[in-house]
Every structure is written in structure tokens, then in C-alpha cells.
């Protein structure tokens, strides 16, 4: 059966180092990280990736007050993606639009805020907000976007830990191919820096990055890496079936080539390189590609001592030494770990490579860990590639959820 081809026609994002694809890309090529100090409740000053978009560009003050940070990020990204796509959205049938938002978790921020608020009233629950439930339902980030945009088609989140950003795109592709919707707004978002719990959890796990210089804190593959920098962010795309996109003369960023999703079934938090390699191979098979057809591998590596090594083991198993045209990079070295947004944001940062043939580097590698010394790793400065026809994006998450998405240069 020949499936409809799916293409990316718009990108909307907010990252700790940029609020548009152009700004984000310029900073990835310019070596500009976006990590700063953030006061975290109960914990004090910690390193975090903070986004600085203007929520009031697309929301009323009341929407911001009533809604969640995750909702604001979704709305920003969705509106920016739609504007970028050039689609005549006002006239588009809203029941044929799907919103599929990947998120690592949702509700922790809002629950922590409410507990803190009632602590000022001796924990009397009559002071608990009536907004708690609409703010904490798992579909909140997608639902707020549907309210803002007037979308009456399916709008929900996909919970897949830090693999969720890719899952948003994958799920949207599937829904477009099934004919469930005609336009998908999809990707991933995260408001994680507003919950102390994620910082405290990683700290208890021994996986929270520390560094005296914020921009140097996130350092995948470096020998001195010491953990994750938690970040917020979002990236939503407009996806369409190729024939629809061509009919309206849309700009096409890339075509969805293939994907793989699987589960480790081995541990709550420890990655499993065997399953990761299987996921990558599954994606290659789905795309009908060989490893040597991939020109950029964007790694998931979060700068934990063990996790980076294990992903490198998986990549080595698939790409080995026989892929001289394959470059490998990492975006978290600039923006930290944007959790549910990671896969979608990191893909976006690499999309312009189809046009400029430049591969953004992994920064902050002062001394490469020999166990992470993959052939083709792009360290500290961008490199010009001979060709960039396919990008493979890895995103893995807790409870062993793995996702690999491959996009390719669009050729009519």
C-alpha cells in the first residue's frame, strides 16, 4: 500500500536561545548557549534553560492568568508555526485540524503551585483553586491551543517522557495518513523548569548538572559532564499531506521519511543501548534507508555520565565506521534538556542544514570522553557537509520509551 507522503510546512518554536527558527539556528551556528540561573522554589539558584517569548503576542492577559505555562508555550508555537506555514488558517475547516502535543509530564507545576498557595492558609483546602483540574488534565497544553485557535478537531497530548517531541510528529503523520485530519499542528512542549520536583528528582538521582558558568553547564560527550540542565521550550510544526501542501504552493522544509518507536522493557530510568539501536534500525527500515544514507544524526544525549555512553554504543552499533558522510551532533549542549520539547526542537535546529549544508556542533566538549568518540562527531564549531539529504533525530525517555524520526530533503 502506498502511503501519502507527509511534509513539514511550518515551524514555530521557543527555545532558551531563540524564539524563531532563524534566531535559534543563528545561535546554534554561533555557539550561543541559552542557560541561566533560575530561582527554584525550596532549592535556590539552579541552572536552567528559560524561554523569553512574549506570551501576550498571541494570548490575552486573562488567558495567561487562567492557563498554564505549557499552554502558553503551545499557543506561541502553534500560532508561530501557522504564520510560518502561510496557510489561510482563518478559512481552514477547524474540524479538520489536529493538535498533537508531546509532553514529558503535565500537572506537576500547577499542583506544586497550589500546594504552595494553600501553605499560606495553613493548608486549608478551601483555598485550593477551582482552576486546578483544567490546568492539570493531561490534555491541557493541547486543549489551551485548541481554545486559542478555535480548533474543533482532535487536540490532545502524547505522554512519552523525553521521547515525546518526536512522538508528536510521528503520531501526526499517522493521523494525516489515515485521513483523520488535513492539517496537523504537532511536536512537543515543556514547562518543566517551573516545578522544583524535576530538579530535586534529578538531583536525588545524581543527574543534575552543576557548573559555575551557565553556558558551559550542558556538556554532552565531554569527559567532565556531570548531568542534565533542565529547560523549558516548545516546538510545533505544521504537517500536511504532500498533495495538499503542493496544491497551495506551500514552502516545504522536509519530508517525513520514516520513524521507529519501541520500549526498553528493562529499567525505570537506565537506557538500554540494544533497544535504542533497534529503534534506530526500525526507523531506517521504515524509511527504506541504509545507515550510510543519513547525513546528520542528532543525538538525544543529555550529558549524564552513563546515558551518553550508552547512546554512543547504540549509534556505533548501527553506523559503525562505514558511514563517512554521517555527521553526529547534539543540541542539548546549547539549550539543556527541553524534555517533552527536546525531540521537536532539536530536529528544528537541524532543518536548515538542508539549505546551507552546515552541521551545527556539539559545544562544550573540552575533552572528549573516549567512550563517546564516535566517527563524524561535530565538536565545538560547525562543519560544512558534502551533502545533507537525510537527518535522523533520536529522543529517548524514562520507562524506556525510544523514538527515532528521520526526515529527508524534499524532492518533488
Amino acid at each position, binding site marked *: 500500500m502506498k502511503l501519502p507522503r507527509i511534509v513539514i510546512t511550518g515551524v514555530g518554536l521557543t527555545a532558551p536561545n531563540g524564539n524563531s527558527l532563524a534566531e535559534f539556528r543563528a545561535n546554534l551556528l554561533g555557539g550561543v548557549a541559552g542557560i541561566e540561573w533560575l530561582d527554584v522554589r525550596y532549592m535556590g539558584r539552579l541552572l536552567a534553560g528559560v524561554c523569553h517569548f512574549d506570551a501576550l503576542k498571541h494570548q490575552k*492577559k*486573562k488567558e495567561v492568568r487562567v492557563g498554564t505555562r505549557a499552554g502558553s508555550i503551545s499557543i506561541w508555537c502553534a500560532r508561530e508555526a501557522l504564520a510560518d506555514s502561510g496557510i489561510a488558517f482563518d478559512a481552514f475547516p477547524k474540524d479538520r485540524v489536529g493538535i498533537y502535543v508531546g509532553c514529558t509530564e503535565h500537572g506537576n507545576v500547577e499542583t506544586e503551585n497550589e500546594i504552595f498557595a494553600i501553605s499560606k*492558609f495553613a493548608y486549608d483546602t*478551601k*483555598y485550593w*483553586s*477551582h482552576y486546578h483540574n483544567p490546568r492539570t488534565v493531561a490534555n491541557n497544553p493541547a486543549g489551551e491551543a485548541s481554545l486559542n485557535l478555535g480548533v474543533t478537531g482532535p487536540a490532545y497530548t502524547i505522554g512519552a517522557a523525553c521521547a515525546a517531541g518526536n512522538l508528536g510528529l510521528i503520531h501526526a503523520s499517522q493521523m494525516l495518513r489515515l485521513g483523520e485530519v488535513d492539517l496537523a499542528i504537532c511536536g512537543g512542549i515543556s514547562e518543566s523548569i517551573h516545578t522544583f520536583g524535576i530538579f530535586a528528582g534529578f538531583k536525588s538521582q545524581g543527574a543534575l548538572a552543576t557548573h559555575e558558568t551557565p553556558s558551559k553547564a550542558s556538556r554532552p560527550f565531554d569527559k567532565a559532564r556531570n548531568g542534565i540542565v533542565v529547560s523549558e521550550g516548545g516546538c510545533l510544526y505544521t504537517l500536511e499531506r504532500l498533495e495538499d501542501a503542493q496544491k497551495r504552493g506551500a514552502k516545504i522544509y522536509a519530508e517525513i521519511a520514516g520513524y521507529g518507536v519501541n520500549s526498553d522493557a528493562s529499567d525505570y530510568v537506565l537506557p538500554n543501548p540494544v533497544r535504542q539501536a533497534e529503534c534506530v534500525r526500525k526507523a531506517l527500515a521504515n524509511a527504506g534507508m541504509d545507515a550510510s544514507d543519513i547525513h546528520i544524526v542528532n543525538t538525544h544525549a543529555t550529558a549524564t555520565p552513563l546515558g551518553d555512553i550508552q547512546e554512543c554504543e547504540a549509534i556505533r552499533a548501527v553506523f559503525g565506521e562505514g558511514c563517512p558522510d554521517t555527521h553526529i551532533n547534539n543540541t542539548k549542549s546549547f539549550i539543556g534538556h527541553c524534555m517533552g520539547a527536546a525531540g521537536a526542537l532539536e530536529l528544528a535546529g537541524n532543518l536548515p542544514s538542508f539549505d546551507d549544508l552546515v552541521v551545527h556542533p556539539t559545544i562544550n566538549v573540552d575533552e572528549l570522553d573516549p567512550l563517546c568518540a564516535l566517527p563524524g562527531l561535530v565538536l565545538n564549531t560547525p562543519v560544512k557537509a558534502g551533502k545533507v539529504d537525510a537527518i535522523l533525530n533520536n529522543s529517548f525517555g524514562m520507562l524506556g520509551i525510544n523514538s527515532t524520526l528521520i526526515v529527508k530533503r524534499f524532492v518533488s
Partner: protein
Amino acid sequence: MTTEDCKKAVLDIIADIAPDEDLSNVKSDVRLRDQLQLDSMDFLDIVMELRKRHGIEVPEADYLRLASLDSCAEYLTPKFNALSAKS
């Protein structure tokens, strides 16, 4: 507290919960919902803020008493005054 003070206290709350609204010409005798974009959740906000800021309880059966500024003043001013008499 006078009824005018009471209306101001209510308007201060509305200014926070409906920050996009222009409150300069709110008519006291017209239902708030008929002149401002307020939904049922916003009215719950007014009830919550009266509780948090002023220690005033509005039982559910009395929610309709908050319909307009005039009805708010009529219903809430004695409550405000009863509280200040206690303190």
C-alpha cells in the same frame, strides 16, 4: 465600610481576574456579565478572592447576589462591616 468602598474592593478583584477589561465605565446597576467578559469560573474567582483577601465567605446559594456592583455592595457591605466590628 461604605457601599462605595465595597464596590471598589470588588472592582479591585475584578481588575486582577479580568485584566483585559476596561473597568472605567462599569455601571453599578447592570449585571457584571452583561458588560464584562466574565464566565462562571471568574465568579468563582471573585468568591475565592473575597475569601483570601478579606476573609469573607459567600455560600453557593448566595452567588447570585454578586450579579452587579449594586447587588454586591448590598450583600457584601454588611459582611465587611461585621468583620471589621469583630477585629
